[in-house]
């Protein structure tokens, strides 16, 4: 198991390096924005990865509500935490792109606002897990995750159903949207690299959560034996 994780970590590192090279060197310079457009290669990959993590959290929470087992709770905790990390980078990258292109760090358009709300929902999910002293914390967290997930598809479709300052969708955005074909390889490589990196982080965080659950069980058993 440890060997497989190490091999996967090395592969992920290679993919991340390749993605970085693709984004900074191989991708063509965009004609109107210039080099700052290259932020997009990290931004898109990170955003899609964050969506995938929150979807995993949603599924794991549903499974937990049905089965009440430690494994699904650990998957839910791990995927939410990694999703928040990726969502944080999405917000940072977006602001650093917006300042030189729009002249402002932030605007309250539908895409940006729903993304910020999504980030806050999952921050509150993690705070609930961390600070709740009730034994019902995993159950409450699972319920919050199921309802909180409503915002995730809303973020995805926000620039399709509302007029936003945020650029039009890259995938399925209709006429006038999309990417130059030469920009797709850096997009896809970085997306793949961040997906592998997220899987690695979720695996590590999952093991940590399972160990924490075992420790808590031992503590309860020890107290019952006394």
């Amino acid at each position: 198991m440890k060997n497989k994780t190490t091999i996967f970590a090395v592969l992920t590192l290679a993919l991340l390096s390749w993605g970085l090279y693709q984004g900074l060197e191989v991708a063509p310079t965009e004609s109107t924005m210039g080099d700052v457009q290259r932020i997009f290669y990290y931004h898109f990959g990170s955003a899609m990865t964050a969506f995938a993590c929150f979807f995993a959290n949603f599924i794991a929470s549903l499974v937990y509500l049905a089965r009440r087992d430690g494994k699904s709770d650990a998957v839910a905790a791990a995927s939410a935490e990694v999703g928040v990390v990726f969502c944080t980078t999405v917000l940072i990258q977006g602001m650093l792109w917006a300042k030189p292109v729009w002249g402002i760090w932030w605007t309250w358009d539908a895409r940006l606002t729903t993304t910020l709300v999504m980030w806050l929902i999952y921050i509150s999910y993690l705070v609930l897990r961390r600070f709740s002293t009730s034994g019902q914390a995993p159950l409450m967290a699972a319920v919050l995750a199921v309802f909180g997930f409503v915002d995730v598809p809303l973020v995805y479709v926000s620039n399709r159903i509302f007029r936003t300052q945020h650029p039009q969708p890259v995938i399925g955005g209709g006429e006038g949207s999309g990417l130059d074909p030469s920009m797709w390889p850096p997009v896809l490589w970085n997306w793949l690299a961040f997906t592998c990196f997220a899987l690695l982080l979720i695996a590590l965080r999952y093991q940590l959560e399972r160990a924490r659950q075992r420790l808590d069980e031992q503590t309860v058993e020890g107290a019952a034996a006394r």
Partner: protein
Amino acid sequence: MKFLYAAYILTWVVHIGYLLSLGQRVKRLREEFEEKK
């Protein structure tokens, strides 16, 4: 170019910070297991 580099660098600051926090939590958990023994 400074915004581009800032975005790439800050992305990795966040990810490496998270990895370090995971390492700290693993260390703390190991200590708790040791205490239990």
